């Protein structure tokens, strides 16, 4: 029987980790001091943004093993074996996710810096709660700071997306 590994060792302070990003298997070489946000950006996933680097703004939100999480607080080596969805994995300009469309249609995108994080948080919310009340939306998005919009149109966008997704009979699972 194959023995399950329960550890990794760094070579000169660098861990080689395997992980899934947006459904693709990837191997990252990450320094022991590096956080997931920096590693993702270094490997080209620029959709995760650095707004504070202290876990307080939510711009770096990614879906980490099924839940929205703060990539700036996750030591990169701990992403070994993880499944990650970044905004790039949710939808693209050619083929956007209904949430991305809803944010555009509701006028919820101003500078856009916080939007990838906010959409990823919303995505999970709608996965677990397809018909959230306004209060539930407000509670779920409280870690994604935005200074441009006052959140009014973003909440509207999440409601609209929820409706749209319910119409499709399912929430797209990533």
């Amino acid at each position, binding site marked *: 029987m194959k023995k399950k590994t329960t550890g990794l060792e760094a070579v000169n302070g660098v861990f080689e980790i395997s992980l899934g990003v947006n459904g693709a298997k990837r191997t990252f070489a990450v320094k022991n*001091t590096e956080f997931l946000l920096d590693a993702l950006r270094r490997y080209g*996933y*620029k*959709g*995760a*943004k*650095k*707004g*504070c*680097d*202290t876990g*307080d*703004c939510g*711009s770096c939100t990614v879906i980490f093993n099924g839940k929205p999480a703060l990539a700036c607080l996750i030591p990169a080596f701990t992403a070994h074996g993880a499944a990650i969805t*970044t*905004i*790039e994995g*949710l*939808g*693209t*300009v050619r083929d*956007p996710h209904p949430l*991305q*469309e809803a*944010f*555009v*249609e509701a*006028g*919820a*995108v*101003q*500078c*856009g*810096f*916080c*939007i*990838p994080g906010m*959409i990823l948080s919303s995505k999970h919310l709608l996965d677990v709660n397809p018909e959230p009340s306004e209060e539930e*939306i*407000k*509670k779920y*998005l*409280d*870690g*994604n*700071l*935005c*200074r*441009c*919009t*006052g*959140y*009014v*149109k*973003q*909440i509207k966008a999440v409601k609209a997306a929820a409706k749209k997704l319910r119409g499709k009979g399912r929430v797209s699972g990533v």
Partner: protein
Amino acid sequence: MDTKNLKVVNRRALKMDALGLACGEPVFTDDVDLNGMLYGRILWSPYAHARIKNIDTREAERVPGVKAVLTYKNVPRVPHTTAGQGYPEPSPYDTYILDNKMRFVGDRVAAVAAETPEAAEEALKLIKVEYEILPAVFDTFEAMRDGAPVIHDEEDSKNIPDAKHNIAARFEFEVKNGKWFGDADFVVERTYRMPYLQHCAIEPHTVITSFDHFGRLVIRTSTQVPFHVRRIVAQALKMPVKKIRVIKPRIGGGFGSKQEILLEDVTAALSLKTGKPVKIEYTRRETFISSRTRHPAAVRLKTGVRKDGTITDAEMDIVLNTGAYGSHALTVMMCSGSHTIPMYKVKNNIKFTGRSVYTNLPVSGAYRGYGATQGFFAWESQMDIMAEKIGMDPVEFRKMNYIRLGEGSPVFKAMGEGREGVEQVITSIGLYDGIEAGLKAAGWQAKKEKYKGQTGPVRRGLGMACMMQGSGIPEVDMASATIKMNEDGSFNLMVGAADLGTGSDTILAQIAAEVLGVKAGDLVVYSSDTDLTPFDVGAYASSTTFISGNAVKKTAEKVRDMILAVGAKILGRQKEDLRLENGRVVAKDGASCGLSEVANTSLYYYDQHQIIASASHYAHTSPPPFAANFAEVEVDMETGRIKILDYVSCVDCGTAINPELAEGQNDGAVLNGIGHTLSEEMEFSANGTPLNASFRRYKIFNTADMPPIRTILIPTYEPNGPFGAKSVSEIGINGPLPAVANAVYNAAGIRLFDAPFTPEKVRAAIKNSKGKK
């Protein structure tokens, strides 16, 4: 004039960059990777006031990977201002790329560029600095006293009115039509205070400098003012403007903090030293401490009022804390009066005294509202106090006194931004309708009745406030645009106007599309690049819609003219009989041809030429938008907690070019203002060290905190604006402080003068008022 026949303007149009942003496209300053790029880091002063006696960088330079270490010894010393304003700037020239004197905790000591961020950090630790610590001053009134520490004692600074008393800017103005307060039945004198506040754009300041194939310096930067960046970097580094190209990619919010040359000079200096691309990206902590803030203010307002509701006299005395450098010291101070005093008619005497004072604290700068926020907190609180004195309803009192269509104010002429202003009269105003709409939406009358005579521990109340702003700086701000036609009948619109997330690219496209008879999506907008787009002062002073919008409209009209000339040839009709409609040139008799035929004709077939035009705009007037805000609050008398239950903001921004984006601007401004009202405040230790330089401890509102916010647009038609438009971006931030203060008074009978209204302060005010009774 009205907006009935408009097809693109005042209609729904999706923000054109929104989908890319929502998909996380790599469009921000930091989202590019350049080969061989170095990482820049800055060493910050740990002392509020100190002189470098000795600085030794040898060990730092020896760290593997370190490519450059800069100190005041090896960069040009050119006094300049970091404020991105019209040239010559009305600011003191009191800033140096690096200096041997430190004027606040967070002032620049040295800069390092290295191959890795770690090496750069390591080098910073190894820079040995010996400081002579100087006495520091943090209070503006102490700083003005004889014998106070002199913060700018250097000889080569320019344009500081009184360096010995730390006065970075001052202005006085008086209109006298009789004895001061001689005509008043009541005189009210109160002082209103605001603390240090930060913009908190979610994208920190980021700059990447590199070189193009001509060896020119390319500055990719998160800025609101690309052309001012080019000029000021050229000045500070003693370079010709032609050697610099500034690119503004997508910007992650600015709110005034990016109307400043903050990192471009030092990043450029590191690139020039190393010959390599260099990136400097602020941390959130650095953004709090070493970017810019709102000017803390003490506003003393003394007003006289007659029992019949006439405001007889107004004396406004404002002292602003500009921190260690003068940046926007003069202009913010002047706007605190020029944007507020004209709001209401003052019968006899007006006096404004303003001083901006240096202290050993972070540098204040431009911040959405730009002085008007400080001014309206005072004015709109005082309006309620005066109304109560004379036993008049505060809404009626405002309705009686606000400036009317066709009226002017001596203030417009006397006070501009940093210089004399421009005479103007109000050419559009929807304030009355705004007040009425707000009263209705807020349920004002019924709720006021219901809330009378409350005695419980939790009490409710309503308050309102009115305000105005400007639309660009008259006879100062200038914008220009270029439009170029393509084969398929689409157009490139190139503007210097800096979309920093506001959606200005989209509304400028809508304006051009309206003129050209096409859809907004037929305009491909590019902003901004000093090599490729024509000049624009940048995104500030609520100028983009009004000034840049007019420039785009003029440009589009020129292009329309060129199109019609070609169309006339194609259709064999008189140019005067043609118009543009639905992507076609249409003649009175119904003959028509498509725009692509026009483009192809001009490019390939006949009398070949590129249909292209540029135009500029500057204005002799700055038509104010007006707003009426209404707050409903709940005050816990025992704990001092204020909860905002409802907030209605009615805004007259003329024609809203894009109603959805206009609403969004106002929603955001209002919530930012609510943050100012209830929680935001930078705190400092006794030696000037910032204590809460993080989103964890400097609390901006999130979705769980936000009250219901309703923006109601009140349409008017501003004859000087493009399709009747005025500004919308700043005004919304001025309302919450006074509207909530007035609502708290209505609910709890206490008057708050000191922002933010924390539970502690509210509780203290409640106890204080009980003590008096």
